[in-house]
């Protein structure tokens, strides 16, 4: 029995590592290829697709920054992403507080309705979003994207923040009430600080969403002053069709904030994703 198990164990082990390495390559090779290409000259791109560049062509990055208004678009994206995080966390934490810590009629129904929003296909709403935004005179404004992104992230944030706030022991809040804390102080001084971890997770999801979003940005903005970096790199190709190396450099620049954020916050992100899966 030991012998047969030894053979199957070796075979399973080889297969197992083949699968793991395959998906490792799927995740990393396109990105490595991208970074490598961003450091080649356009000639090297054509003639030696797999070779390393003779000398890293960092000027591609300078070119990308200079040609496509990248700094402006990058700054716009930062404003939109930070604004989205701030607005979404403010409104979601207020609602989360009363959904998690107060008792009132219809509470569970409201919570279920808000959370069910994750199942709605937002792309079906291109027509109403566009008409609503133009009618309200919000077309082509940076803060419109903040408003839209913060709203779209409400279901996820409410889910994460409410589950976090519900887990805070009642005693802590009762102690605060005895100390004379009112409604607003319980929110600001007790519950908010104690749910910091949930807020960070929800905020990270908001940031990544807002940084990466493309469709609504394309639909709701038209000028440089309100366009985001995703639109910038998307339309880079049509503007500078011959400078592929510069395009690759621009893509690398556009990925930097989310990749760097992920390096530092990956545990929070993964924990946030599994918050539902483990509890169920």
């Amino acid at each position, binding site marked *: 029995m030991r012998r047969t198990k030894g053979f199957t164990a070796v075979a399973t082990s080889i297969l197992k590592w083949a699968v793991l390495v395959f998906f490792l390559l799927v995740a990393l090779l396109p990105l490595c290829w*991208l970074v490598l290409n961003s450091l080649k000259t356009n000639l090297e791109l054509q003639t030696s697709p797999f070779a390393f560049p003779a000398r890293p062509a960092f000027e591609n990055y300078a070119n990308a920054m200079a040609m496509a208004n990248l700094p402006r678009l990058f700054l716009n994206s930062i404003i939109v992403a930070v604004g989205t995080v701030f607005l979404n966390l403010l409104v979601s934490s207020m609602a989360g507080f*009363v959904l998690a810590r107060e008792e009132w009629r219809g509470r569970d129904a409201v919570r279920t309705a808000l959370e069910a929003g994750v199942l709605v296909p937002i792309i079906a709403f291109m027509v109403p979003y566009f008409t609503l935004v133009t009618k309200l005179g919000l077309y082509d404004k940076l803060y419109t994207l903040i408003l839209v992104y913060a709203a779209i992230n409400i279901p996820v944030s*409410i889910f994460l923040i409410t589950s976090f706030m519900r887990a805070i022991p009642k005693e802590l809040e009762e102690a605060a009430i005895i100390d004379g804390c009112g409604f607003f102080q319980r929110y600001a001084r007790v519950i908010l600080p104690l749910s910091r971890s949930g807020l960070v997770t929800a905020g990270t999801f908001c940031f990544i969403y807002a940084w990466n979003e493309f469709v609504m940005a394309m639909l709701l903005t038209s000028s440089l002053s309100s366009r985001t970096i995703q639109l910038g790199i998307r339309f880079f190709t049509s503007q500078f069709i011959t400078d592929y190396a510069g395009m690759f450099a621009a893509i690398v620049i556009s990925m930097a904030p989310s990749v760097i954020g992920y390096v530092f916050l990956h545990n929070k992100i993964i924990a946030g994703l599994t918050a539902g899966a483990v509890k169920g």
Partner: protein
Amino acid sequence: MRKRRNPNAVKIALFLTPVLVLFTAFFVYPFVFTFVASLTRWRGIGAMRFIGFANFGKLLGDPTFRLAIRNNVIWALASGFVQVPLAALVALILAREPRGWKALRTIYFLPNVISTVALAMVWSALYNPQYGAFNAIRGLIGLAPRNYLGDPATALVSVIIQGVLYIGYFMIIILAAAMSIPRELYEAAEIDGATTLQQEFRITIPMLRGTLVTAITLAMAYGMRHFESTYLMTGGGPAYATTTMGIDLFNKMDALRYSEASAAGVILILLGTLVIVGIRKALGKGDPMAEAGQ
């Protein structure tokens, strides 16, 4: 015994208002608006004129939209029955905590935090007939270059492969559930002489049933609304070979056919709901908490 009225009622309403305003403006109103607009003739300006279900008749008779529905169904099937099984395979391997499993888990999820725009541009470049990596490999082994995204025969498969190979999200969900299965079950099976493979089929997969159903449901719902990476890589072409309902909706809107675009939105919502309800009927209930977790 009736619940006492909460003395903070006004403050509660105050705290809920911002979320309710935003939710109404960007979820409830668009939902109602889409259904109403789909029953009218309307080009974005002026009054809507009620015309009943004519837009739906027109859409369902439109070969492009039918192709879009077909492509979304193919996306849904590929996501539910290729992407999720691959994610489950990787999750089951990682759940046994092989060397470096935490780092691998982190790396597998990395593409999920990168924008669809960036990934679509990288994959377009990889598929590019002149300088793409795939054609460079073909060149090395003496094959003629192929225009993967430009050829109707290969375009749909090429964009779907790009989509389903990124298993990170479903892998994370399944892995978390797999790791919460009590270890004692495996120890008992080990003593009874069950092989690893037998343990996976007799213990892990049955225990993960709810999570797997949830993952398949979500994957198929995402497949039914697939839009972004295809729009970015092929624009729905060549010759509508890769078009989806979302792309068709966008094109109709761009052509100022707002009411038809709204009807496309209604069909997109209804088919997505049908998939969710259908899967739950066919495979049983999933895990509601995981579903809400997105």
